[in-house]
């Protein structure tokens, strides 16, 4: 049997980057506990449109936890109270009938609000563009076993590469630091021989871009890793520190 719940939503509404935002309270009724959090917001928006009001703006795309577009700071947690999932994977069965849910955008100087719950995360793209790649002259594909890579390194690189760049780490961090993201993107390449060649230049360039864009200084609280939908490990940050210090000592 399908179960339904009624909820009170406190949603952050903000016209644009410069305007002052405030919370608006909405009631939604008959939400299926089988629906996802974003489907619940779709119901809210349908309701707002029918009432002739502006729907709530929020980011989303694949709705299966791989694109990194959805965000939302739900009841004090990025991507909601459940661990290791994105907002789109959050089910309404995690909430109880009559609950009040507070929904806020990522709050960080590096991610300014575009409108309501949607923030500008192009800063992450700029950090990647600064060095989060390998420069390869594309030619014929090599034999897959020409370069041997230990299984442990390959696994760790894959774990780091599972970062979807959603920005939950910055949202969770009291310092607005992007270190978990940058460290994952540096690690996924630094762990593999193909990425080692440009490791020093990459660490230098990506950290410089991160600092330039106004992200904070990491104080190792670990809130980022605790809230990360992909469970990116904090040890990536130690690796980034190591890579960066090594690069600077070489200068």
């Amino acid at each position: 049997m399908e179960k339904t719940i009624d909820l009170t939503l406190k949603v952050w509404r903000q016209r644009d980057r410069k305007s002052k935002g405030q919370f608006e309270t909405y009631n939604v009724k008959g939400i299926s506990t089988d629906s996802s959090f974003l489907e619940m917001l779709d119901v809210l928006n349908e309701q707002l449109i029918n009432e002739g009001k502006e729907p709530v703006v929020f980011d989303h795309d694949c709705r299966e936890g791989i694109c990194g577009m959805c965000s939302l700071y739900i009841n004090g947690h990025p991507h909601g109270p459940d661990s290791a999932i994105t907002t789109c994977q959050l089910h309404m069965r995690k909430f109880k009938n009559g609950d009040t849910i507070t929904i806020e955008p990522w709050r960080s100087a590096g991610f300014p609000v575009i409108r309501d719950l949607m923030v500008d995360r192009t800063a992450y793209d700029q950090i990647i563009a600064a060095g989060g790649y390998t420069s390869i002259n594309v030619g014929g594909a090599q034999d897959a076993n020409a370069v041997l890579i230990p299984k442990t390194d390959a696994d760790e690189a894959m774990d780091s590469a599972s970062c979807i760049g959603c920005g939950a780490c910055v949202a969770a961090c009291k310092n607005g630091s992007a270190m978990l993201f940058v460290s994952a993107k540096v690690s996924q390449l630094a762990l593999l021989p193909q990425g080692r060649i440009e490791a020093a230049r990459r660490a230098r360039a990506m950290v410089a871009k991160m600092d330039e864009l106004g992200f904070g200084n990491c104080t190792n609280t670990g809130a980022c890793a605790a809230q990360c939908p992909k469970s990116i490990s904090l040890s990536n940050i130690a690796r980034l520190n190591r890579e960066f210090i090594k690069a600077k000592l070489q200068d």
Partner: protein
Amino acid sequence: MWLTNSSIGRKVVMSVSGLFLVLFLTFHMCMNLALVFSPEAYNVICGLLGAHWYTLALTAVLAAGFIVHIVYAFWLTIQNRRARGNDRYAVNVRPQGVEWSSQNMLVLGIIVILFLVLHMAQFWFKMQFNEVASSMAGLDGEYLYHDDPHNGASLVITEFKNLWVVVLYLVWLVALWFHLTHGFWSALHTIGFNNNIWFNRWKVIGNVFATVICLGFAFVLIALFLHTNIEGGILGWNAADWLLNK
């Protein structure tokens, strides 16, 4: 200069200065333990330190360590608050696995510094500073602020006879313990000396280390307090020989 204009560089300065201060704390704690067993031995150490040229040089290095650590702490905090943006979260929950101390390092540090002011006024001012200031004033064998700057044992024993002094120092030690439990592993993490295997090891080593340091300090405080306040004392030396008349 990367130690000032990159985020990781600034953190490296925090880390290295912090580890240096941890070394100093370790030395200070070991030195204090001597007092419990023999005030004479403690005074020998005080005499070795005193106001010799090498101690003054070390004091200058130590002071620089403190100043760098404190200045960077405020600098980093101001930058981090700016990076957080103007709007604060209405609902904010500390996630599981995030230490309370890690999010309150500045507050804990400020408590430590406030007590340091009291501590310096009680001892350093009457000892090393007294000696230097008196010799600069041209006094020969006489002192400006306290008659006997080489008798550190008496100063300490007399101060820790007071319950309120002991309680204040214990509060200070609690703040210091919290500061160290995060600071120790975090410092090693920041200089890149960490990975998935050592992550929990460093945390345990840091907790044990912070506990040993703080218990060492607390042991001296409590032993002296009991010795000077219980009839007949609990230690192998006579408290009356060392107490100053205030």
